[in-house]
């Protein structure tokens, strides 16, 4: 009896130690754990596929039972919305194309220059303590760990595990997810009016180059926008031309530029809005408006290329002292209803080699 108890204790301790050993090994990014996952994934994949086929009628019945009314209501709402959006979409597509052409012309990185792979969501997370989805594209199509994943609306997460023909995507709402973002704020919601331009005095290229003295000209363009946070032409319209003896420098008026705040976006789990922290402490909460767009900031160490749309500010929480405000974000992508996704073939430097 005593011998049995000792053996049992030994076995329990051994199992606990084995668990701790594997956790330590995995947290230190050991390649052996990746190998174990890869082998297990290969063995498990056919079993999972067979079970998925067999259980599809059951899950279909469950979804039909649970979501029929919602689907009908949503369908009606979407039909109305599609009718409203059709015209706007054409104009928006033209603007996006123009913007991409301008960025390409200036040698700036654009999403259009990054290849992507279209994938379909084939499974959700089986646990209550992670926010992941499984997609049907893997290393065979060039998907690698760390690549950003988008749907039609915007960023939804990043690839965390890659197998031959499937991958796991950590959603942006997972508490382990963090991404550097920028908040594009504007000075006001009212139509933006840039200083008046006296067209007869507007300098030509030649006249500017020939000018010996410093001249100041102002331009007049009335730019009206209803898109919060975006000030079309604000950074391109020359507001002040300084002509020196050797060079001409154009200085845009700083007060009319959109204010860009950078911070770190963090997920907070299922059903909770992600937040943006670590904004500059000097940022006044009043400077950031509800509805201001949030886009990825990019940069050499960022997990995503710049200017990928993420969401809009839904609440600004001001904090006392030197702590900057915290922003709650409404994501543009509906994470509860993901179907087709786009994996950008862009591997961040921080994830390379994985």
């Amino acid at each position, binding site marked *: 009896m005593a011998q049995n108890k000792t053996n049992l204790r030994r076995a329990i301790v051994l199992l606990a130690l084995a668990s701790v050993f594997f*956790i330590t090994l995995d947290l230190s990014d050991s390649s052996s754990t990746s190998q174990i996952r890869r082998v297990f994934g290969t063995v*498990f994949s056919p079993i999972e596929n067979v*079970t998925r086929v067999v259980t599809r009628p059951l899950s279909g019945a*469950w979804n039909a039972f649970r979501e029929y009314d919602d689907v009908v209501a949503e369908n009606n709402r979407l039909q109305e919305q599609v009718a409203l959006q059709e015209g706007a979409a054409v104009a928006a597509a033209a603007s996006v194309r123009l913007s991409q052409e301008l960025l390409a012309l200036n040698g700036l990185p654009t999403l259009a220059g990054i290849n992507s792979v279209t994938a379909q969501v084939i499974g959700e*997370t*089986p646990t209550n*303590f992670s926010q992941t989805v*499984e997609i049907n594209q893997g290393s065979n199509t060039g998907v690698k760990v760390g690549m950003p994943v988008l749907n039609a609306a915007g960023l939804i997460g990043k690839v965390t595990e890659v197998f031959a023909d499937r991958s796991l995507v950590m959603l942006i709402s997972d508490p382990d997810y963090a991404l550097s973002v920028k908040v594009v704020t504007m000075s006001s919601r009212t139509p933006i009016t840039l200083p008046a331009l006296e067209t007869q005095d507007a300098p030509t290229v030649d006249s500017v180059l020939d000018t010996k003295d410093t001249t100041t000209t102002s331009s007049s363009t009335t730019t009206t926008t209803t898109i919060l946070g975006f000030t079309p032409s604000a950074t391109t319209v020359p507001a002040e031309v300084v002509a020196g003896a050797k060079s001409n420098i154009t200085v845009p008026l700083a007060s009319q530029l959109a204010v860009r705040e950078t911070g770190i976006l963090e*997920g907070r789990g299922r059903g909770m809005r992600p937040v943006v922290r670590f904004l500059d402490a000097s940022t006044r909460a009043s400077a950031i408006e509800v509805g201001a767009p949030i886009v990825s900031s990019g940069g050499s160490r960022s997990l995503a290329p710049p200017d990928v749309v993420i969401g809009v500010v839904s609440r600004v929480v001001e904090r006392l002292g030197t702590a900057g405000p915290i922003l709650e974000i409404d994501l543009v992508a509906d994470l509860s209803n993901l179907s087709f996704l786009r994996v950008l073939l862009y591997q961040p430097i921080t994830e390379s080699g994985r």
Partner: protein
Amino acid sequence: MFERLVAVVRSRWFRMVLVSLSVLSLQTTLFSEVRPFGYAVQILAIFVACAGATHDVYTGAVAGFVSGFMYDAILATPLGISALVLGVVGAGAAVMLQPFRDPTWWLRLLVIGVAAALGEVVTPLVKAVVGLDGWLEWRILGAMFVTFGAACLFAAPMISLARWTLREKVIYGSR
């Protein structure tokens, strides 16, 4: 050599691995989509709790460790977390039934539900210990209730499955 291989294949632990793979495939397909009140039913935890409730602490712990290790291999969480948690669930179910010589069916069912629900508390705790915090929230209670309810519903077939999987072949007359 061949006889030894046959013995391994016929052992209850080999059967346990195969059955765990099947239950795990149910977990990642059917039960990742069927989410009562938005919570995923942890059928694997229920199976492990059944294994512990129908056998001893050692069997429950090993069944939990093996199943959990396989669960970890398909999740993005560190390898070993679910192994530890499900080991606790399996052993916990057996420990809770130890004081009772011949437990009634409803007591067994209650223990399975409690042990499986316990797993929903231990998981975020272990994750927090290894630095993956952010999951210790009130919604754990919801996950516990759903798992408990599902355990009450699925315990009967799972007990039969666990008994069949982990039964030991008794050879009469051998020493």
